[in-house]
């Protein structure tokens, strides 16, 4: 899968690229408007990460061009502005998602995963992951043939982990993914612990291998 990172901050572009690369992703970086135009007109990407404020032009223009050329590339806008107007405009112009800076890399990865899956397997809503089968429409999970009774939060967590395989995810990132702004405001992230514990237990009882590992002090990891 090819991902294009259009971001003028080299340090951030590098982080994203390093985090996403490996497994099945290959990342390219465009640091300004012209570079971005060159890349999108020459190649097709599975997902484009687009910063709206670019040297040499407005990121919105890139969206318009993609739309005009009827390209199917998935687009996630990553912007420092987090303005409602920008968000609405971006989504109207065909962007698939909008992520405000600062964000956690696992959050970005989960969204990239979700978009690529949608674009790639446009007709299928099933994710096959080793002995796990996730039905995204029905929001059901099966281990081999056993149906798991997961809560919404447990299901969300599982999907998040699968989108971030072999990556350590901090508790902060998990809390924010689960509770958004509210997690932001609460200083305790204890509530994640019980969700993880329950998820682990249910997976184990259904005979799933123990992929979900606790990483000392920092967070959790879905290790394949």
């Amino acid at each position, binding site marked *: 899968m090819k991902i294009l990172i259009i971001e003028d901050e080299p340090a951030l572009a590098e982080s994203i690229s390093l985090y996403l690369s490996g497994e099945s992703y290959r990342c390219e970086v465009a640091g300004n408007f012209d570079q971005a135009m060159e890349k999108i007109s020459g190649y097709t990407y599975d997902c484009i990460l687009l910063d709206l404020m670019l040297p040499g032009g407005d990121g919105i223009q890139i969206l318009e061009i993609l739309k005009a050329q009827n390209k199917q590339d998935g687009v996630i806008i990553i912007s420092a502005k987090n303005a409602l107007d920008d968000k609405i405009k971006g989504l109207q112009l065909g962007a698939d998602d909008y992520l405000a800076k600062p964000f956690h890399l696992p959050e970005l990865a989960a969204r990239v995963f979700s978009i690529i899956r949608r674009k790639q397997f446009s007709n299928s809503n099933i994710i096959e992951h080793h002995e796990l089968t996730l039905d995204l429409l029905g929001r059901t999970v099966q281990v081999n043939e056993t149906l798991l009774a997961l809560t919404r939060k447990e299901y969300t967590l599982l999907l998040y982990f699968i989108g971030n395989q072999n990556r350590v995810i901090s508790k902060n990132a998990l809390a924010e993914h689960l509770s958004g702004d509210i997690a932001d*405001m609460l200083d305790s992230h204890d509530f994640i612990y019980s969700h993880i514990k329950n998820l682990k237990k249910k997976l184990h009882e259904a005979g799933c291998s123990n992929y979900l590992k606790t990483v000392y002090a920092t967070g959790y990891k879905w290790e394949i």
Partner: protein
Amino acid sequence: MNKLLYKTLKPISIYALLVLLLSIPAYYFIVDQIWVNELDKHHYALRGKIESRFTKLQLADSTIEQTIDIWNKIEPGSVFTPHPTKNITKDSSYSVIRFDDYLQDREQFRCLSTSILINNKHYRLLLETNMEEMDETVMAISVVALFFFLLLLAGFIFLLKRFSGKIWQPFYASLDALKAFRLNSDQPIRFEPTAILEFNELNQSLQRLTERNINTYKQQKEFTENASHELQTPLAIVQSKLDLLLQDQSLSKGQSAIVAAANSALARISRINKNLLLLAKIENHQFEDAEQLDLSLLLQETADILAEHLDSKQLSFEMNIHPGVSVHANGVLLEVMLNNLFVNAIRHSPRHGNISISLDAGGLRISNTGTTGLEPEKLFRRFSNTSPLSPGTGLGLSIIKEICDRYSWPLSYSFEKDQHTFFIRL
């Protein structure tokens, strides 16, 4: 009567009273002088006429004595006394107050004691004319003075009311404009030009002052928004680097703990920055569109979302929501406000504490257990409540206040029986 008008009236009235009081003795002396002079002149004229008429009659001595005798008995106000020629005394004019048998009252008389020569014989002639007593004169003048004082006072009040009201009208207009002025409305004050120089100068100065204030305030708002925006990218970089660092397999336990601590602190910075940006956006009117929202429903939803956080702190929770309470507001802001209220209560409740929420058409009340009351005047100020025990952003209450202000919902705080209570009147 207005304060300002009363201020002008008071010294003027006192001055008028003083002048009129001074005029009482002045009038008395003038009236008295004129009267006494006139009476003395009159007495001398009488004396002259009597003397010359007696002389013209050329009566015999005996007849004269008889006539004088009768005169003394009939004619009031004049008495002849025989007088030895040797010791003629000088004339004297004087005033006297004595009881008058005829009028049966104290009366004041002006007298002339003079000597008169009839048929070469000296008589002492005493002429008396009744005049108004001194105290009665003073009284009459005082009454008149008082009457004029009251007339003046009534006139002053009437004129002041009539003209001062007109003269000060631009001042009151400016005052009203100032009262209606809101710094965060971005609307500079517009004063009507007036015909009075001082008021124009005042208005111009006020206008300059408010314009400067608005500009400073705008710059400050812009600064906050720009600064927050500028911080987002470096924050994103630091966040991404920490997320990457976590992937390093060779991290020792100690290093992992350091990264975790840095992550928490960074989360707090991001939160503060986000909240500052949110405040700036509210102030910059970026949440203008409003709709009719079912507050009862939203509150219930917020409570559902937060249920697990209540559980994890083992808080007891009571909720009493009247269905169908709706408000006209921006959906995003209302949600932010409810979240902040709830989370604030959860954060600051001790483990096993309790939270209660009630909502009806009158307002929204949210209480939680606490140990000490907060200072109401500092409560809603930015960064005034950051405590080392529960480090928040120090902006949650400011945001609640800002949103309440936006919709003119009075927000109050009280602390009673170990319960912090926030009440929003709707």
